[in-house]
């Protein structure tokens, strides 16, 4: 079993924000993700995995106004993220709760 880390972030800027920078020597598996849209319009949210300086969008979510989407382990990307997990949004504010396993 790896190290479980969970946190909640309120994102109030449009564009990309860091969710978690993976500490050296660890890799991270996303185990749970919850996204709430507090904006007045449909939000398109991307989950981005960084591999060094290169990035990859691993998931795109559409969250309606006032709605919360909860994704469990089998609905999230299976691959590990080596460097940084980031979130990109076109609306604000959004609240992202996540649980990550560092192994």
């Amino acid at each position, binding site marked *: *079993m790896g190290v479980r880390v969970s946190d909640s972030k309120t994102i109030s800027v449009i564009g990309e924000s860091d969710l978690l920078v993976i500490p*050296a*020597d*660890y*890799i991270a598996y996303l185990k749970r993700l919850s996204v709430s849209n507090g904006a007045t319009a449909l939000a398109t949210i991307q989950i981005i995995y960084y*591999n*060094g*300086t*290169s990035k990859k969008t691993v998931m795109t979510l559409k969250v309606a106004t006032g709605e919360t989407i909860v994704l469990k382990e089998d609905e999230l990307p299976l*691959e*590990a993220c*080596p*460097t940084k997990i980031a979130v990109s949004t076109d609306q604000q504010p959004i609240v992202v709760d996540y649980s990550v396993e560092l*192994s």
Partner: protein
Amino acid sequence: MGEYFFFYKEFNPRLKPREFIQIRGEFYEIKECRPMLPWTFKRTNITSNVELGDLREQGLKARSNEILDVRLRIDGPVKVLFRIEGAGGDVFGGWGALERYVDETAPSNLLENLIMGDAVGWLWAKIVPLVIPAWCRLKAEGYVYVVEKAGARPQTYATPAYIASAYTTTSTR
């Protein structure tokens, strides 16, 4: 992801104190056995083959009176070419190395080897990305056996493959 098997059993030490092992024709008594602190190595944004070279330089090495019994685990979309010093058997002029490609599907029990001091069983590695950019994380876990050279040939002793036999670097055959 090897540790997530439902019936996962821990990796047990192979040798206990007061047992013996043969390495390069010499006999050693195990004085102490303790878990090894894990060794990890991570490399990101791999766009071409990376020659890691000698893993002793990355910190995977033992003291001269210690044997590391390590199991390696690979994570990431890569394959790794490992060269195990001595594993190729006795070849002309010395002791050959064995080279094998492995990826993260390789079970860690097949990636177990013994490293003694900085001369026996050490590893060399090259990372080959399967996708670009790739990343790789290597992890070694296992046990440290503190050893002492035995005075005489013991009645029973372990003969680990590849590194048990004596060899000379100046073979005249």
